[in-house]
Structures are given as structure tokens and as C-alpha cells.
């Protein structure tokens, strides 16, 4: 049998174990703090990377050129026929103007280098101007034309470094001296990049914009809102206020909870098999995208709407029934108006999730390269997140900047929608 411990020995042992236990305690707490910092840190890294990569895309380099609208090039026969004007060689005007600035470029190679300084989109700008106002022919104008994407990257100083730590410069030395001379002459400037907000997709980064994708997303969300909100609210009303306790209702409930957790790409498969192959709806149409997103957001809307209906106190229902309202009148005249803010909040959060969704849209052909801005829910379109995916895959380096900028725009939309939901909740939420 062990000797009973002396009080001093007990004290010593307890002290020793306490020190150990406090150390573990501190360590554990530190782990927790580190985890929180990691979580917040990831968010900070994500945002700084994207903003750091993307803010440059809101400005774009332009070159000021004196363009002579030479009738001999545009309309040699003087017919002023819009078809002739539309198909004229406007790139030639840009080339001529560049050669006047830098007459030393004589051989083919250096001329090609010279012409590569200005974006091929410059010709479209001139074409549009002439079509709008044929009286320009024969005049000379000082115009700012978009510079090529490589020039733009060079001017912004954001040429990426390659694996060996050397800048992967794709401009020749000659081109760089020309750029220096243009800058010195005040002919090269950074201006606000309106094309990015008003243009459709393009293979040329300096001509690509997000307006087409934004409009596609808008049409899709419109379809989703008009279908998912009424359907979701109606389903929630039935399940909360009318449904008898039966196996069918249990099945519906389990089903809704499960649908909310089904991977989004499976909804894309459904859309492809049912809407496109079975019903024969057109591929790449915002209508189909909206239908798929409706099915995806429906569970979210139903769950939020049910919570909103549940939060209306039974006394309201009993009072309505007590003064002789029918059950339907009680629901539509009293419960629904009180629950509506909560339902709207849920719908907005569902919409925000639908706006960020891209995987199911890949399945139904919304990844096509579409230059035109869509005009309706049936014209081919892409969506903002899919546009981000497409640009992220593009080989041109200038698309890195534009991808990040498009992400910033998408995140701004999401922020606005979520802020609206929070505002709605705080403004109309009632505690009973």
C-alpha cells in the first residue's frame, strides 16, 4: 500500500498538473484564434488578389491618331452606298495614319509590328462613325483609338513574369521605342474603359465587354424570379397552412430538403435531357437557363417562405377565423402580408445564389462564344459567371485582368442583392 501523500507533495503535484493544464488550455485557445484568422485571411487574400489583378481593366490605353477619311479608300466610286461604306477597308486608314507618324517603318516586318500597336477594333470605330455620318468622307479627324492588348499591358507595367523570373515581353524593341515616342508626344493615354461595360464578348481582350453576359444573366434571373417566387410561395402556403399530415406531405418535405443539397450540375443534366432534348427548346437560351435555375432555387425559396409563415403567430390566424374569414381568406388577407418580407428576403438570397451559379449552365450550351448582346429570353446568350469561366480559359494574357474585373462586377451585384435582403429583413422583420 502506498504511503499517503503529504500535503506539500499533493500541492506540488496539483501545481505541476495545473501548469500543464493551463498550457493546454492556452494552446487550444490559440488553435481556435489561428483558425479564425485563417478563415478571415483567406477572404482577404482572395479579395486582394482579385482586386489587384482586376482594377487595371477599368482603364484602357488609347492611341491618338490623325485619321484621314480618304474617299479613295472607303468609297472609290463615290456611290455613298451604305453597303459599300460598311465593307470598306477601314484598317487601311489606321495603317496610313500610323505610317505618317513613323515613316521609318519600311520593310514588311516592321510595318506589321507598327500596325500591331493599334487594336483591330479601331477599324470598327471608324466604320461606325462613317455609317452614322457619311459626310465625314474627305475630312481629317483626331481620334482616340483603342491600343492593342499587349501595348496596354506594357503601358500599365503589368506584363507577367515567366517561370525564369524574366518578363515575357511579346513586343519587339522597335515597338517599345515607338510606344515611348507615342507617350512622349501625348498620343498614348489611359482612359476609362467603356467598352468593358458596353461590349459583348470578343476574341480581342481590348474589345471584350461584359454587357452581353450581364444581359443574359438578367434575362435568366427574370425568368427565375417570375417562376420560382410564386411557385415557392404557393408550395410553402400549402405545406404550412393546408397540408394534412400524410405520407405524401412527408415525402414532399424530405424531397425539398434533399433537392436543396443535390449538386447543381445534376440540375444541368436534367435541363439538357428534359428542356432541350425532350421539349426541344433552343440551346444557349436564357429561358432554359432560367428554368434550370428555377428548379434549383425553388427549394431555397420554399424553405425560407415556410420559415416566414411559421413566424406569424397563431393568434393572427385565430382572430381572422374568429371574425368569420374562411381559411383561404385568413391566409391571403392576413398571414401572407405579414410573411411577405421574410419570403422576399429568401427569394433575393435564392436569386443571388442563382446569379453566381455556372455549372448547370455549361450543360445547356451557355458556354458558346457569343458576340452579340442578347435581345430577349430566347436569343443565344451567356451568363456573367460563365463569361468569367470562358475568359479564365482564354490564352490572351490581357484576359487575366478582365476576368478579375468581371469577378469584381459579379461580386458587386451579389453584394447589392445581399444588402437588399439584409435591409429588407431589418426594415420589415417583426418580433412577436
Amino acid at each position, binding site marked *: 500500500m502506498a504511503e499517503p501523500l503529504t500535503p506539500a507533495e499533493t500541492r506540488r503535484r496539483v501545481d505541476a498538473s495545473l501548469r500543464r493544464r493551463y498550457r493546454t488550455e492556452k494552446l487550444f485557445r490559440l488553435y481556435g484564434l489561428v483558425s479564425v484568422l485563417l478563415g478571415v485571411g483567406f477572404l482577404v487574400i482572395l479579395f486582394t488578389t482579385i482586386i489587384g489583378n482586376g482594377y487595371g481593366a477599368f482603364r484602357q490605353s488609347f492611341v491618338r491618331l490623325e485619321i484621314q477619311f480618304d474617299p479613295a479608300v472607303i468609297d472609290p466610286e463615290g456611290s455613298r452606298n451604305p453597303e459599300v461604306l460598311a465593307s470598306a477597308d477601314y484598317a487601311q486608314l489606321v495603317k496610313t495614319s500610323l505610317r505618317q507618324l513613323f515613316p521609318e517603318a519600311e520593310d514588311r516586318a516592321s510595318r506589321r509590328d507598327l500596325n500591331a500597336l493599334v487594336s483591330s477594333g479601331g477599324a470598327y470605330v471608324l466604320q461606325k462613325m462613317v455609317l452614322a455620318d457619311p459626310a465625314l468622307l474627305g475630312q481629317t479627324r483626331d481620334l482616340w483609338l483603342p491600343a492593342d492588348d499587349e501595348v496596354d499591358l506594357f503601358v500599365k507595367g503589368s506584363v507577367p513574369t515567366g517561370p525564369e523570373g524574366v518578363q515575357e515581353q511579346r513586343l519587339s524593341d522597335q515597338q517599345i521605342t515607338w510606344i515611348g515616342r507615342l507617350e512622349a508626344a501625348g498620343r498614348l493615354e489611359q482612359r476609362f474603359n467603356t467598352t468593358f461595360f458596353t461590349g459583348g464578348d470578343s476574341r480581342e481582350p481590348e474589345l471584350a465587354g461584359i454587357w452581353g453576359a450581364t444581359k443574359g444573366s438578367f434575362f435568366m434571373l427574370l425568368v427565375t424570379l417570375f417562376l420560382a417566387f410564386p411557385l415557392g410561395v404557393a408550395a410553402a402556403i400549402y405545406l404550412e397552412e393546408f397540408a394534412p399530415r400524410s405520407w405524401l406531405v412527408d415525402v414532399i418535405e424530405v424531397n425539398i430538403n434533399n433537392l436543396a*443539397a443535390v*449538386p447543381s450540375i445534376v440540375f444541368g443534366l436534367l435541363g439538357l435531357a428534359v428542356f432541350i432534348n425532350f421539349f426541344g427548346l433552343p440551346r444557349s437560351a436564357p429561358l432554359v437557363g432560367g428554368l434550370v435555375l428555377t428548379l434549383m432555387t425553388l427549394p431555397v425559396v420554399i424553405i425560407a417562405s415556410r420559415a416566414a409563415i411559421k413566424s406569424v403567430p397563431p393568434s393572427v390566424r385565430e382572430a381572422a377565423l374568429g371574425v368569420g374569414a374562411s381559411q383561404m381568406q385568413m391566409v391571403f388577407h392576413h398571414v401572407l402580408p405579414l410573411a411577405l418580407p421574410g419570403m422576399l428576403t429568401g427569394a433575393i438570397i435564392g436569386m443571388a445564389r442563382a446569379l453566381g451559379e455556372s455549372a448547370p449552365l455549361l*450543360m445547356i450550351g451557355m458556354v458558346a462564344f457569343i458576340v452579340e448582346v442578347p435581345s430577349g429570353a430566347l436569343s443565344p446568350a451567356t451568363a456573367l459567371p460563365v463569361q468569367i469561366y470562358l475568359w479564365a480559359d482564354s490564352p490572351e494574357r490581357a484576359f487575366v485582368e478582365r476576368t478579375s474585373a468581371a469577378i469584381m462586377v459579379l461580386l458587386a451585384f451579389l453584394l447589392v442583392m445581399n444588402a437588399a435582403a439584409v435591409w429588407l429583413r431589418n426594415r420589415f422583420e417583426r418580433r412577436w
Partner: protein
Amino acid sequence: MRLTTLLLILTAMTLAAFFLGRRRAVAIGGVGPARRLHSLPKYYGYFASLWCLLPGLVVLLAWAAFSDTIITSRVVDSLPDALRNQPEAQLSLTLNDIRNLAAGQMVDESRRAEFAVAAQLYSELRAASQGILSGLIIAVSFIGFAVAWSRLRPQFRARNHVELAIKVALIAASMVAILTTLGILLSVTFEAIRFFQQVPLSDFLFGLTWSPQTAIRADQVGSSGAFGAVPLFAGTLLISGIALAVAVPIGLMIAIYLSEYARPALRRVVKPVLEVLAGIPTVVYGYFAALTVAPVIREVGAALGLDVASESALGAGLVMGVMIIPFVSSLSDDVINAVPRAMREGSYGLGATKSETIKRVILPAALPGIVGGVLLAASRAIGETMIVVMAAGLSANLTANPLESVTTVTVQIVTLLVGDQEFDSPKTLAAFALGLVLFVVTLILNIIALQVVRRYREQYD
């Protein structure tokens, strides 16, 4: 008549029916306290307009579903024998040409004469169909209205009829969720069965090589694609495993710290910040993984003398883990807060420190809920698409090395289905078989998780 005009006419008729019905009710029942009506006058109006609108809509939908088939079969019957007896695919191409010609679009010049008669017939039939439809809808709506009108009496229970109609509509809306699940199950299973008719189930589930290229010519070398999905399952498990290894410890510790240690002020700041992390679209994470994380991992690997693939499983897994952190932390937060205060206080009363209480009392009590949360997170990781499409590879390597490139089920579904394919090659159908596997696996995980979470909740309620 155009469809929009028709719909406008139908709407106008419905509105007219409402006002007529209401006026009729007032006329037969009187107004004010002496009213002899069963329901409010507006319900008689609603009743009349429902009888006007619904029959018209039913006719419209039926017509939309069947008219094209009927017209097409009439056109096919009118074709000369040589064209009519073509194989199925050829025939549908011919019909397409005829439709285009009827719509006034360009068709191959040489065949224009051949199709002219058929196209003429097609446009005539379509015009006739439109005319019949318009007449039919207007007639049916009118008859419906007349029937409703004849039933309007003071004792008629108009409100009950209208409320029944609304209730049917509510039930129909709640059926959409069931129809969606059925639609997913049927469409995916149907295509998957067609796939398994060409590729045996055992080859798909247990085969070790995945190369879904099918040949254009039958005699081409390597014409038979290999559809062994084991490398895909392994790749999916590897990436999801990495993601969970990142997300579960960090998410759990965040939940513990926020609910047990953090001051309320910190909690108020950090919770919404983490919700922002959960609200970021997956395509943004994918971009971040491909553009920022993957190069960093490759450079670190190179500095350590390791050979890292540019699309390593590690990069995709890490970023996916970050995506799931808020998911794990908010679910764990809920279950940790659900542990009764009395258990904590009992533990403190016995002299346990906070961390000892958490490790020996709270976590064991909350374990079922946490396991449920982790299962839900796993199902989310397995089904996640954009991150792996953008940051994981395409080659189906069977490896457990996180530094190599692997591919996943979702990546293969996307690569097999993006772009134009014919719809009966095993290559496209394979995507649906993979989709079926994905759906079934995530469904099982979800059902188990929801069951575990629910049972746990009952325990402490």
C-alpha cells in the same frame, strides 16, 4: 393570328367575364345588408373568369403539344416515296430543310424545287392550324363563360368553388419539387440505361482505365473507348478528402472559438465575414485556384525538389476546402450551441478548464450533429464542379499522390457534354451514367446526414 394577340384576347375575355359575373351577382342578389348572396359579389366574378380562362388554356397547351406532330406527319405523308422511305435521321434532316424553306430561309438551291410543294403544304397547314386554334380557344372560352353564367344564382357557393381552384393550384405548386426529383431520376436513369446497354455495368464500375474517345470510323485504331470509372471515383475522393482535411479542423475550431471563447463583438464581426466566404460564386474560387494557388504550389514544390503537376489535386482540394469552411463552421456552430448549458456548468463545477470541457463534454455530446455536418460538407465537395473544372486536370490517373493531376466525376461530365455531340454515342451517354452515380451518392449522404442531425436534435429538445 399571332400567339401574343391570342393571349391578349384571352386575357381581355377573362377580365370581361369577371366584371360581367360580378355585375350579374349584384343584379340578382342586391347590395348592402339586404344582400341575399352566399358569397361576396367578387367571388362570382372570379368564378366566371376562371371558367373562361381555364378551358382556353387547356386547349392552348394541348394544341402546343400535339399540333406539330400532326402537321409533320401530314407533310411526311405528302412527300414522294423516295423521300418518305428514307432512314430516320435523313428524314428529320429533310423535314428541317422543309421547315427552313417554309420560314423563308436559305436552303440548298438544288433541292429547293424538290421541297417546294412540301414547304407550301407545311406553311398552309401551319396557317390553318393557327386559325383553327384561335377559333377554338375563343369558342371554348365563350362556352365556359356561358356555363358559369348559367350557374350564377344567389344561393350558389361561388367562394367555395374559387377556393377549391386556388387550393388545387397550391397543391400543384408543391408537386413541382417532387416532379423535379422524378425528372432528374427518370431522365438521368433513362440515358444511363442506354449507356449500360453499350457498356456493361461491371466495366463501368470496376474498370481501371477511362478514355472516352470514340472513333469516327469503325476500323480506326483504339476505336473502342474505355469507360472504367474507378480513376474518376478515386480522383473525386482524393480531392474531396483534401478539401475535408482542410475544412473540417479549421471550420470546427472556428465554431468552437466563436461560440466558447470569442467576445460577442468579435463574433458579430467574424460570422458575417465567413458568410461572405460562403456567398462567393464557385467560379471565382476556380479562377483563384487555377491562377493563384496552383502556381504557388508548383513553385513551393520546385523549391523543395518535388515534381508538382500544374493542375495538381492539392491546389483544387485546398481551395475547395476554403470554400467549405463556412459550411462546416456554421453547421457545427448550431450543434455546439444546442448542447444544454447545464452540461457545461456541471463540467466547470467539477473544476475542468474550458478546453477540457469542450474536448470531454461538449464535443462528445455534439458529435452526431458534427458528423452530420461533415457528411453534408462531403456531399457538397463531391458535387462541386467549377473549382475542379478550372483547377483539376483532365487525364484520368489512378493515383493517391496529391501532387499529381487527377480528374473527377464532375469534370468528366462537363468535358463530355460541353460542345455539340450526337446524342446516342456512348461518350455522351457516359456523362449521364456518371451523373446518376453522383446523384445517388450525394442523395445517400444527404439522407444519412439529415437523419443523423434530426435524431440528434430530438435528443436535447
